[in-house]
């Protein structure tokens, strides 16, 4: 037993040793940064715009630096009575989340000016959400997991509705809030059932319980595990729990949508992997239950890929199209989740895919942020006609991201897809992989259609005022370089992902 039952308050358990303090450094940095940003945003004697912007970036930068340091040490440290862990896995994801937040902030700066939305709260909420994600990846306890999920989601609910005067934005926020709360409730109910059966909310204790009952698990346990999994399936927008997503993605301001598709999704999967491991999936579940879990997830993965890709074909609004494509990518990730226990690579391909997806998708959204017209109009396919004439380099970047999402070499998307499908073959999921590759063939059509408009049509209408700024250009450049770098030389990222999952 890792965690002692808390019958009486025992202060010595709550004290932090030096290595524990060091392990918590990234959280302290981010939280401290947020606190200062909040104070800065209410002082009266200066305009908060620039200081808040730079301080947020600094926070992100130092947070990444701290996590990198921990990653180099490679130590694994339990904190807060074993409720949280700082291991390679969590530190790896901390970097991903903070980077996503950082690039979102970079690309939003000019955008917020144009939309008259330049409020310091935007940065505060983004950072809070990132903090929630960080906790999510490092939680070893269902309660902490739930708190992290709420912290992350609540901040994003507000961000989705950030365009207060816009009805679509409000509608999206409300929809997201109600459905998101329902999902949280389902997850919490599942956690309660698990606690009832196992006597613990701790992930490793639950796993120990499962492994000590090889003969069979009580049905209430299975129900609880399913409810928790459904909560996560909702968060990653897997079919049939995806209905909320396209509307929310369309209604939210573009950079927020970008942040949601990358950070939120990565965080949900990071937590999902931990929970799925805890339920004993692939390791210790009795055969019948394992088959049951596997088959239902299998169906869910296939539906997610099919629905996501096929509906994306019919979309003419880029935001909506990328929303459905995001559903499709959740499907590929589910393939990796299914294959995890059965393949020698474990969940490493899932982690790798999340990174690749975050990079290319965030890149695409930064490009959209730059070309969006007032109120996020001008994001229909038609509006992209002839973009290559006006913005050759921006178009090139969009081309790289689209090819990457379609999984064409030499891009990150290809390397990631390759690994995930390879691991599924190792887990003997041949029919699943065939369905997956055919789905990704479908996806090529709608990704390439974007390029048809950009490169092969003549410009129509007068060009919208460009929102290019040094910051967003820097963000796009980094994303292009990363997309190509991970695609051409994937070895480093693969070994980093492997290290991350071995610490699980």
């Amino acid at each position, binding site marked *: 037993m890792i965690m002692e039952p808390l019958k009486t308050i025992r202060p010595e358990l709550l004290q932090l040793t030096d290595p524990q303090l060091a392990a918590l450094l990234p959280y302290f940095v981010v939280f401290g940064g947020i606190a200062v940003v909040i104070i800065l945003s209410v002082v009266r004697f200066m305009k908060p715009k620039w200081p808040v912007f730079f301080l947020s970036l600094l926070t992100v930068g130092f947070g990444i630096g701290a996590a990198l340091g921990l990653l180099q040490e490679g130590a694994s440290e339990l904190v807060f009575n074993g409720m949280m862990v700082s291991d390679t896995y969590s530190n790896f994801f901390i970097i991903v989340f903070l980077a996503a937040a950082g690039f979102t902030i970079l690309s939003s700066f000019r955008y917020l000016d144009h939309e008259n939305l330049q409020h310091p709260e935007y940065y505060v909420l983004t950072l809070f959400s990132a903090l929630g994600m960080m906790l999510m990846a490092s939680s070893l306890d269902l309660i902490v997991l739930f708190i992290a999920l709420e912290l992350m989601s609540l901040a994003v609910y507000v961000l989705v509705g950030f365009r207060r005067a816009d009805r679509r934005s409000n509608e999206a926020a409300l929809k997201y809030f109600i459905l998101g709360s329902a999902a949280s409730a389902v997850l919490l109910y599942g956690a309660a059932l698990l606690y009832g059966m196992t006597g613990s909310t701790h992930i490793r204790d639950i796993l120990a319980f499962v492994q000590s009952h090889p003969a069979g698990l009580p049905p209430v346990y299975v129900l609880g595990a399913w409810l928790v999994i459904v909560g996560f399936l909702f968060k990653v927008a897997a079919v049939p729990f995806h209905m909320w997503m396209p509307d929310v993605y369309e209604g939210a301001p573009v950079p927020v949508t970008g942040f949601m598709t990358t950070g939120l999704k990565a965080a949900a999967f990071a937590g999902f992997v931990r929970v799925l491991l805890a339920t004993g999936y692939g390791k210790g579940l009795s055969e019948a239950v394992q088959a049951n879990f596997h088959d239902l997830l299998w169906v869910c993965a296939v539906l997610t890929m099919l629905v996501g890709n096929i509906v994306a074909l019919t979309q003419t609004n880029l935001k909506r199209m990328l929303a459905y494509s995001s559903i499709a990518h959740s499907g590929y990730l589910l393939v990796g989740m299914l294959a995890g226990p059965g393949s020698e690579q474990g969940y490493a391909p899932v982690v790798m895919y999340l990174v690749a997806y975050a990079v290319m998708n965030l890149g695409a959204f930064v490009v959209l942020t730059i070309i969006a017209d007032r109120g996020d109009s001008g994001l229909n396919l038609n509006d992209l006609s002839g973009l290559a004439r006006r913005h050759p380099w921006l178009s090139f970047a969009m081309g790289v991201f689209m090819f990457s999402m379609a999984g064409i070499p030499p891009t990150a998307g*290809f390397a990631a897809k390759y690994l995930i*499908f*390879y691991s599924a073959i190792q887990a003997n999921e041949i029919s699943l*992989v065939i369905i997956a590759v055919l789905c990704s063939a479908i996806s090529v059509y709608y990704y390439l259609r974007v390029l*048809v408009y950009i490169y092969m049509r003549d410009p129509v209408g007068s060009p919208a005022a460009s929102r290019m700024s040094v910051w967003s250009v820097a963000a796009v450049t980094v994303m292009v370089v990363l997309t190509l770098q991970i695609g051409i*030389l994937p*070895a480093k990222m*693969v070994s980093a992902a492997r290290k991350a999952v071995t610490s699980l």
Partner: protein
Amino acid sequence: MAWLDSHLLTTTVFLPLVWAVIGLLIPTGAPGGRAALRGWSLAGTLLVFAVSLLIYQRYDAGGAEFQLAESAAWLPALGINYRLGTDGISLWLVLLTTFLMPVAVLSSFRAIETREREYYFLLLFLETAMLGAFVALDIFLFYVFWEMLLIPMYFLIGIWGGKDRVYAAMKFFLYTLVGSLLMLVAIFYLAYQHKLQFGTYSAAFVDLYRLKLPGADYTSAQSLLFLAFALAFAIKVPLFPLHTWLPDAHVQAPTAGSVILAAILLKMGGYGFMRIAFPLFPQAVALYQVPFMVLGAVAVLYGAWVAMVQPDIKKLVAYSSVSHMGYVVLGLFSLNSIAVTGSYYQMLNHGISTGALFLLVGMIYERRHTREISAFGGLTRVMPLFAVAFMIVTLSSIALPGTNGFVGEFLILLGAWQVSPALTAVAGLGVIFGAVYMLWMFQRVMFGPLKHKENEGLKDLSFREMLVLAPMIVAIFGMGIFPNFVFDKLSPSIDRFVARSTTAANPAQGE
């Protein structure tokens, strides 16, 4: 120089890409900038050709199977490495590529007037991808190059193509991709089999050749894997009935694009069969030998018949490709040295003669902006030099003795006869139909009275156009009269290939 010696293949493969990136920096807006860009691109392709001649010189036909080998760790955790090397089969396709690229660039000087920077960049990028696919010795690396070349080709068709260019580009991309993706699944399976059978990960061809896979019947692993690969390669070849992307892509592509598509991209399919599908799955090949030979023979006739009724010259040439590549499949599946040598030679021939046909069609299109056969007639009177060149290429395409086409088709029919006289007889009819559609088209375009006023003022070949056509015509006669020049450095590799691909000669490959 020492570095070049040990990295000759890498240099050849990536020189075009590096050259292309530098070319992007040339300011085309400045006076003389466009000419500089053209000169730069031409110089680059010529330089690559020169470097590839070094490969020819270094390659020793009697030596090891794969020469000039290079290897570097790439994704060592999964046994994926950057491995390059060449044997006789790779060698001549590499030379064909590097030989045709300067021609393709030179032919674009007049034809391409918009967005030239992107155009030459994509052309050179395409060269890198094609060369890479021909010399990759790691199945993953091969796949990367194989898919990567879709990107430049997609843009070349989609941006500089004809009226229905977007449709054609999309169809080309999706068609080839669907085949490739199933091949990808097969690649995963194969690579993992190596781990299961030998305990280590590897994706090198030489290691995969040692795999033992069950192959007794139609549902065995060999059979299914073979079908996955064959689908990808057959689409590329393209084999009837998977050829429908080809007429669209060929007709819509700009001239240089059509030349490269016909001359080199289609060869990827044949090369894939020779490098992967045959040596890895000999039992499956034996199983599917007859059906594929039938498809090959059908393709020969079908392509010829459809070509006959085309009103558009370019479309006619496109369908003639289907017919010619049918011979290639017929010869490959005959699985004896004579037929396979013929098939390989036919691939090179098709590259030269169909490439030249597309160049010629491009030249009259630039003058008249139409390709309808009915819009011409009697062109010999105004364009005598063009007529001579066109005649030579036409005769090469219908395999007149003395031209390169004869050697290939003759060897194929000779070798295929040993396996199936009936199919060979059917395919032999294709030779007659081939002569019919080509000569009939030639007669309608070149001979007779000058029916249309617009044709009276057509200019004969310019000096640049002569430069474009001269190497092609030299190759036509050279390969027709001295085939041994090619065979010398090819035969040992072909023999190895046949030995590996026939179960009888390689009993270790069984269950």
